[in-house]
């Protein structure tokens, strides 16, 4: 998916702009984290007076716009931002994981490999924060190929501990706090994902590149 975006000549990507109520726009874009970064930059430069800029799986929401018409005109005139380079020079954030989750065997079966194969794959894949949601500090980490998508548990667990690393669809995620959850658990990380006294309060912000190395090997 990344390669397709990169190969597209600038300006060729189509963006659909959908109005959302009286003060918001939903932009359907190819690379939401890259658009998020670009739109955030425009806002910081005073060109885009949005209160909130919220990436989704295939969209970016601009909320709290005083003049959505003007904002729509502005974004339609923008060239698609350069995709974030997966092999870029800046190093990815490393969050070591103890791969001992109770759903590892089930994931291995779904992936057609053994538990070592799952750990190897997860520990070596560079992920990226596609978008956030669910609870403060929760990041949907993309980068796994679509064929490794796994369904959520048919019945969510009533309590998943903070730091649990799970998989659902083709996303990985880490639970910031203990909560009910339906993701398939593959391991644990010892990391503070959200601290309101920190700036930014979330460790994993949209576009951040992440690696989940095997703690047993580091």
């Amino acid at each position, binding site marked *: 998916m990344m390669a397709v975006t990169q190969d597209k000549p600038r300006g060729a990507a189509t963006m659909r702009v*959908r*109005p*959302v*109520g*009286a*003060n*918001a726009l*939903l932009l359907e874009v190819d690379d939401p984290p890259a658009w*998020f970064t670009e739109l955030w930059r425009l806002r910081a430069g005073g060109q885009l007076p949005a*209160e*909130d*800029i*919220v*990436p*989704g*799986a*295939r*969209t*970016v*929401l601009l*909320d*709290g716009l005083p003049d959505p018409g003007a904002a729509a005109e502005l974004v339609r005139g923008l060239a698609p931002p350069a995709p974030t380079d997966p092999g870029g020079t800046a190093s990815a954030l490393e969050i070591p994981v103890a791969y001992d989750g109770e759903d590892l065997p089930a994931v291995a079966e779904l992936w057609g490999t053994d538990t070592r194969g799952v750990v190897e794959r997860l520990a070596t894949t560079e992920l990226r924060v596609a*978008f*956030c*949601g*669910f*609870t*403060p*500090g*929760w*990041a*949907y980490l993309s980068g796994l190929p679509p064929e490794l998508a796994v369904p959520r548990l048919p019945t969510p667990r009533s309590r998943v501990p903070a730091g649990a690393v799970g998989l659902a669809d083709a996303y990985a995620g880490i639970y910031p*706090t203990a909560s009910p959850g339906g993701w398939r658990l593959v391991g644990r990380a010892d990391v503070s994902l*959200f601290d*309101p006294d920190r700036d*930014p*309060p*979330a460790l994993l*912000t*949209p576009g951040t590149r992440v690696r989940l190395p095997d703690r047993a090997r580091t």
Partner: protein
Amino acid sequence: MIEVVRSGLLTTVQDLGRPGYAHLGVARSGALDAPALIRANRLVGNPDGAAGLETTLTGITFRADVRTTVAVTGARSPVRVDSEPVPFGAAFGVASGSVVEVGSAESGVRAYVAFAGGVSVAPVLGSRSTDTLSGLGPPPLRPGFVLPLGRSSPDAPGPPAPGDADSSTEPAAGEAVIRLRFGPRHDWFSVTARDALLESPYTLSVKSNRVGARLSGTTLSRAVGGELPSEGLVLGAIQVPADGQPLVFLADHPTTGGYPVVGVVDAADLPLLAQARPGTTVRFASWT
């Protein structure tokens, strides 16, 4: 300081919320009936965004440990200071040691209690609001909780704007008419479903809370099957989950979601939903 004696069904500290963090999964929160909180703040000479208390149906009782000025707005409720009635929707003085009781609402759901100087608990990400979904901000009040008050501005209480004190956002005669704009995902629904949303009455469910006003009525059938990739949600979004029963997202709504949003409620009509009691008939009207 004030000390909570009786906390009621659900009483939380609320101001105008913490927008600007939705990209990190942080809900905006803030008073569900924001105009009512603003009226209460103005009555006691506070800035609009000062933090007050939002009660739910059964009010609150508290003891003031300092001399202060208080106003109650929103859901019309009997107010007493040391058992003596005082007017609703107007500022009144409270002596140190007095007990203030906001009784059960006669109409509406959420009453707002403002104090000169505001409730000055520590702000979290720029707001003192309780987010009932994530737990950010102070926890819901319990008996025995002590809340600090800020210093009031010297000229408090300011004069209320004309008509402010009496204005109310409660739905009249058990029916609320809510204006909506279709989109962004109205095309995921059949024309029949979109017509039904405008033509058939819905009933506000008892399962409604600060996250959303849940409605029951005609099931909204989809024209497009499958799952919608998660996308950002706005305040007032009318989301239609798998069961086809719409819900309107209120201040503590999740920041992203994977069910299609058929339309968005006009922000000016959200206080009507905040003050509508379970069982209230809700009708939608198209608005452009």
